């Protein structure tokens, strides 16, 4: 079975909510929309206090090319444009909307009929995706229209859909495939049309046999979409790992990007959002979120409106367990511990994980024993122990030379380290600092 060539780990899967159908979560009392929900420039608010908005009304304009518009997920009145602590742990500007109903914009097609035909030109599709504020739904939140506009000199050859969901615990994509397979496939064909390619792949790890079976059956009517079952290995959902696993091509070190080897990678959730945006005129304002954890009474998958506080999801899943040690936004490997449960659901919130005390506790650090396990599991072929040490010593020149910018921050090194060293903490510091140095250098030129 296919997988990527080097490194990787296999954490306990813990897909507790895999058997739970997607439920629609009740509307929140107040919805909060942080203005920076994506990579790139923050959006600019275009509403002010007292404005009345409907579901699907644009409330913030994209702040540049690499940016995305934000739409209201509720109907009501703008309470204020203020700030809230978001998943980053810092206070960021946000729009607060008091909910008083569920009145949708008339332009949105709310019927559930499948619309297969799409007669738009590629540019029109990209424009429509941009107008709907669609970003990568896997967690990185890179604006989708940017990925669909290859830089000059690059040509896309295939679209690869990331339905791997290699993060333990999370099941949002898995459920989406089981329940919206037809829509996803239409979305994939629209994405293929947008970048003008004739080949599409959907990579699914084989711990989701039901999804593989269903998708293969449904994909039979599309001659150019192929379902690729993949061996279970983390971090297969990483863009470069997925390209390696599916079409056996290797993306060179940064600044090279996937399009340099002809691949456009999109998350399966993004494919669904693209379907809704292009065929149903529905901007991105809701998504499937997994609420899970070993002590959670009722691990579930919720179709959630953006801006809903995480506390409401936790309540719906049976409440906050008493032994909660950490609340993580995202999965256990790449997710981030949150400062409080009032953090709103954003475009990239794939899950809320409630770790119990035991899981959350970090083991005490001990000296490196030179076992080189971190080297063998690094999917990018780096030497994590070295990068961490150099970062701790602030030797930025060498950190750069050792290729820190290739790090995808998957955390496999830290996961596997028998000495529980803070490898990723230091590597992230090094990556951030070196990134700053490189930007400053480029700006000077």
């Amino acid at each position: 079975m296919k997988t990527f060539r080097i490194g990787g780990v296999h954490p306990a899967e813990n897909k507790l909510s895999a058997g739970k159908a997607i439920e629609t979560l009740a509307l929140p009392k107040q919805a909060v929309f942080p203005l920076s929900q994506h990579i790139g420039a923050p959006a600019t608010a275009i509403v002010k206090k007292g404005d009345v908005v409907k579901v699907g009304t644009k409330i913030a304009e994209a702040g540049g090319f690499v940016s995305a518009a934000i739409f209201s997920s509720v109907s009501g009145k703008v309470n204020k444009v203020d700030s809230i602590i978001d998943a980053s742990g810092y206070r960021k500007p946000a729009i607060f909307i008091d909910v008083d109903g569920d009145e949708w914009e008339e332009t949105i097609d709310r019927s559930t009929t499948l619309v297969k035909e799409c007669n738009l030109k590629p540019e029109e599709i990209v424009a429509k995706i941009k107008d709907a504020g669609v970003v990568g739904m896997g967690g990185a939140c890179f604006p989708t229209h940017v990925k669909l506009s290859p830089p000059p000199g690059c040509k896309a050859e295939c679209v690869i859909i990331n339905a791997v969901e290699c993060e333990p615990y999370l099941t949002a994509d898995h459920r989406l495939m089981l329940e919206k397979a037809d829509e996803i496939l239409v979305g994939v064909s629209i994405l293929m049309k947008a970048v003008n390619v004739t080949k599409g792949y959907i990579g699914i790890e084989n711990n989701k046999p039901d999804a593989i079976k269903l998708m293969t059956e449904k994909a039979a009517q599309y001659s150019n979409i192929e379902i690729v079952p993949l061996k279970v290995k983390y971090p297969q959902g990483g863009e470069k790992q997925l390209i390696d696993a599916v079409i056996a091509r290797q993306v060179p070190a940064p600044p090279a990007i996937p399009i340099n080897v002809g691949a456009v990678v999109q998350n399966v959730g993004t494919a669904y959002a693209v379907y809704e945006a292009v065929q149903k005129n529905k901007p991105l304002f809701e998504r499937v979120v997994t609420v899970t954890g070993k002590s959670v009474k009722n691990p579930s998958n919720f179709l959630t409106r953006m801006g809903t506080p995480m506390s409401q999801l936790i309540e719906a899943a049976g409440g906050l367990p008493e032994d909660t040690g950490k609340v993580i936004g995202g999965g256990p490997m790449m997710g981030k511990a949150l400062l409080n449960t009032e953090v709103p659901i954003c475009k990239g919130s794939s899950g809320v994980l409630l770790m119990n005390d035991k899981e959350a506790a970090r083991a005490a650090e001990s000296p490196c024993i030179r076992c080189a396990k971190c080297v063998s599991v690094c999917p990018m072929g780096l030497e994590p122990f070295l990068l961490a040490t150099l970062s701790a010593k602030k030797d930025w020149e060498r950190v750069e030379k050792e290729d820190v910018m290739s790090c995808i921050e998957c955390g496999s090194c830290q996961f596997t380290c028998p000495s529980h060293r803070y490898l990723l903490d230091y590597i992230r510091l090094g990556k951030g600092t070196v990134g700053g140095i490189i930007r400053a250098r480029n700006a000077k030129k």
Partner: protein
Amino acid sequence: MDLILVAVISLGVIGLISAVILFVASKKFAVYEDPRIAQVAEVLPQANCGGCGFPGCNGFASACVKAADAGSLEGKLCPAGGTPTMEKIAAILGMEAVASEPKIAVVRCNGSCENRPRTAVYDGAKSCAIAHTTSGGETACAFGCLGCGDCVEACKFDAIHMNPETGLPEVDEEKCTACGACAKACPRRIIEIRPKGKNSRRMVVMCVNKDKGAIANKACKVSCIGCGKCVKVCPFEAITLENNLAYIDPAKCKSCRKCEPECPKGAIHAVNFPPRKPKVEAPADTTPKAAPAPKAEAVKAPEAPKAEA
């Protein structure tokens, strides 16, 4: 006997020949270095702290010599050595020393465990730089001290230490040279290099929180809430309010202490002033070094570079 003689003579001859070769080589390939550079380097502290902005003490020495040749030592300052060192350098180079104000590192956060309740636990690597990137920190104040001690690590003069009780770094005024290494190491730019002030007395806003008043007020007992009372009371227009945060311009501040009692949160500190009595004598400038606290007696050594906090 013969053998020893031969050995001595042959070694002696080899030595002689080598000496001649080395002598010729040293004359022929000599690199001229201004002897003043070595002289200047000798009077420098040789801590290589980089506070002057040059690569080490030797780098600073050659920069001084170059500047002297150009005509002025203006802008050259060894923060660790301060005025005495600069005077010595000036004497060596036959220049006039440019007077500079002594400066000191000031930690502008008073968010001790007592003042700033903990709202979260950080369990990552013990480094402020890393803690800063992960989240707002263990308290509700996303601007205040993280307490991991990056500044302590950065100090080459053993002049800044964590106080285990408050969890905040404290500057040793006698040892601090205002080289600015701690200010650079602090990811939150809490440490500022400020003029030491007359008799080491100075007025400082001990807060860098830029949140709106209500949020800052909730996060910390002694935060600046940007109410602007100090701005109004200041007779010298030394205090400015920007982004909900007051700042006292040390160049304009006359240390009248009017702002201190005015601050409803006690965020403005009068450092090294004698305790307030019914009527306090004006900050004496007659006895420059002697009087009040033992701290002020410190060798008035350290001076500072242009603050670049």
